[in-house]
């Protein structure tokens, strides 16, 4: 665990992975589908890319491994699937990023860069 007080902006992929886990604990493929759904397909989370991100987020302490839900089916080899959950630090990183995005949005609105912006 390298850093539990991450303050730099999150990348789009980090943001969507953490966002996916903010709702419920998920296994890898569940995260892939959630990222695809939430980003409207704009953020790619193929297996290799996703697990690089997960590996780093686990290392940074923003995500942790979790027990599989009782009713979750096992994998094709009869082994329990690996699940992941958002840690307190992860939730805090998400919150900070959301605040940062809100500030960015407000700045864009104030410069009338968005439709419906008013002075």
């Amino acid at each position, binding site marked *: 665990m390298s850093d539990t007080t991450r303050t730099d902006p999150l990348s789009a992929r980090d943001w969507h992975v953490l966002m996916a886990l903010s709702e419920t604990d998920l*296994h890898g493929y569940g995260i*892939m589908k959630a990222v695809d759904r939430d980003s409207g397909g704009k953020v790619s989370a193929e297996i290799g890319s996703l*697990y690089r991100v997960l590996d780093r987020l686990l290392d940074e302490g923003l995500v942790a491994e979790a027990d599989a839900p009782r009713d979750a089916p096992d994998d094709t080899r009869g082994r329990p699937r*690996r699940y992941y959950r958002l840690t307190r630090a992860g939730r805090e990183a998400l919150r900070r990023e959301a605040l940062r995005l809100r500030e960015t949005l407000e700045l864009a609105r104030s410069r009338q860069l968005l439709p419906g912006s008013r002075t």
Partner: protein
Amino acid sequence: MTVRHVYFAILLRAFPGDFRERRGEAMRQAFDAAQEEHRASGRAALLSFLARTSVDMVASGCRERLRPGRRSRTPNGAQVSWLDVKLGVRMLRKHPGLTLASVFALTIGIPVGLGPGHFVDALTAPLPVPEGDRIQVLRLWNPAAGHTDPATLRDFDAWREALTSFQALAAYRQASYNIGAEDGGGAPVRGAEVTASTFAVLRVPPELGRTIDPGDEVDGAANVVVIGHDLWRSRFAGDPGIVGRSVRVGPTLHTVVGVMPEGFLFPIRQQVWLPLRTGPASSARGDAEVGVFGRLADGVEAAQAQSELSTVVSRPDLGSLARDEHVRAQVSAFAYSVIGGLEGGLRTTPEVLWSQVLAWLVLFVACINVGMLIFARTASRAGELAVRTALGASRARIVSQIFVECLVLAALAAGVGLGLLGVLPRLIPANVSAILPYWMDFGVDAGTVGRAMALAVVSAGVAGVVPALRFTSNSVQENIRRAQGRRTGTRSGGLSGALIVADVAVAVAAIGFAVTVSDMVRRAKTTDEGVGIPAEEYLAATLTLPRGLMTGGEASDPVQYRNRVAAAQQELVRRLKAEPGVKDVAVADALPRMEHHSRRVEVEGEALSDGEHGRSVRVARVDLDYFDALGQPILSGRGFGTGDLQGNRDVAIVNTGFVANVLGGQSAIGRRIRYLPWGDGEPGPWLEIVGVVGSLGMRVVSPTQDQGVYQPFAPGDLGSVQLGIHVGGDPVSFTPRLRAIAADVDPTAVVTTGGVLSDVFEGDWYLMRALGWGGGLLVAILLALAASGIYAMMSFAVTERTTEIGIRSALGARRRDVASSIGLRAMGQLVAGVVLGMPLAGVFYGGNADSALAGMVGAFLFGVAVIATVGLVACTGPTLRALRITPSEALRGKG
């Protein structure tokens, strides 16, 4: 464990060992779940998923290995440094032959791998206007009929009213116009009638003046025209005072109100834009066919817009024309306005998917061949690697170093390959690029560079990592012992030999294919056998009377329009026949040598079994004197007469191909046939066969399948007809006279000439030419790959046998014997490949029943000679290298 599991396990090897240990199992679980779900969605979805996953796994694995500051959690893991890159560059210089062969193979493989995707990107590039990707075309796809149903002005009005997914909609209709100064004349120019909203949707301001205003669309408004930059420069010498000048467009003078900037050629390659006078939707004009497009509203995606359009189309009460229940609304990128109706886009068509798979296969073969070269080079460094291993370098460290060396090589090849792709657009002939849509962009952009680099990484993985893993599989002691004994520690095994044999076999088969295609093209081009007339004596021209330039009454009243077209066609043909030097004029919707429409017919009394859709035939609509004008006798029955134009016109003349292939040689006269619909629907009326004519080149590329049906048409039936003018001598020189007569007959008449009929290439011709080029390219690629593979094997064999060669030389073996022993294995592989390739080549010849035996044998011998030459050239370098090794060098172990 399935093949897919094994494949994923291989992909996983792209990641460092410690990463695999931590996340490998979870990644496998995710792969299992994902592939199960994609498999349920169909083969295309599964293939697409596997392709995406493959690229992503290799790219991510490499990124993970190269990540700065990556902490390996196993001791002495794979680390990559600048030193490896420098070493890689040094290796390129140290082994120039190997570098050249490898770069050559990958320089071919990488652009071929990129090719299909690059072509699709070019074809479907967004319009070159601000936010061009938001411009979408609205179409009605009829899957049962296999084509799009044209939209009408009435649809346009209804959609413009009802749709909220678009900021604005616009409509256009293409045509050609005779453009000149006040005095008239001039050659035809491609143009379009467009709604005023067109320019607002495209967001392109004029270079001079203004664009078309809504006021210009009103019936009775002054005639205005907007011209393109190129036309302004070429016809009007870039006159800065062009705005306000009068220009003759067809019969009437139009005021130039604006000039569009250079490069604006909407919708295809237009240079003239007139107002599309929409008129009231209820008038006959409302049924006029138009192309409809629009700019998506902010935040709206094409899928949402399509869903809304589907709703509007399904409700005729909103104003759209009532449609067949099968018709589906489509909203897609503007490029699809010329590509046709494709559900799921061009990328998901089987043709593109298969091309992509084949292209990747070529790249894979190239990688394997380079892999063999790398393997041979690694083998020659056995001593160096053994020492490094003994000093503590881990297997991962050595593998990563070889990978980086290979990556340097692949990156170099990708760079050269990208250069080739960049040059490609310049090789497109001017007459072809002049008809390509203006948005097509074959240039190399950042995305192409990114994909090329990704392919370079994958290539380096396949070509470098696999041989390195195999080579480093021995223990430290074993490597040292073998290095001391001047042995490489491993053997290439039978796989590489089998690959070379396969390379050669496929190359021989490809040569057979290329020769067959070129033979067909040559025969079809040089003989008139399939055409039936001396085509070089005919001038081919298209006569069109654009409806858009008619005055109000004629444009909206079909009967008036038809009468005018009929009068113009008849008068033009009469005047042409009266011209000195003109022998006759044939009028039809397609002339011999041109691509004729295809239909399916049913013969009365011959029951169709379930699932059978009748016989495919080519059809033409011809005027009553067509066969006389072409000097074709009626072989049996009678020709068309004026009586055939009365009533239902339920008569047809068939050709001898039809009698032979469809009627089985039985008598045709009096038999009845009818056209069948492509999808659901009622068959056409029965047509009685009244005559039989000889073959007239309805499908000249495949004369044996040239079964056709002719039906009569009356002047005025077709707004656009083909004229085959029998001039003799130099037909092209008659073009100015033809234009002058046409302009005299009707100033709105647009005559475009296709040149001499024997030079007309359409439809299948382009396919054949593309096949000819593609076949030639494939042969060149496969020969190059076979040559590099043979070179690799020879090089490796020399390295392996250094000591043996030295001892043999010391014992007095002649140079010739040494050379033959080295070359024997390669020649054996060449012969095996040729023998295996012959039956494959025979398959292509078998499909071409017209090929003479002598031609087949000649082509086989030609193929064998080419392969043997390539093999000999590939053997020469390594053999000379072997012969340069002296006995003392070999025995000292310096070979």
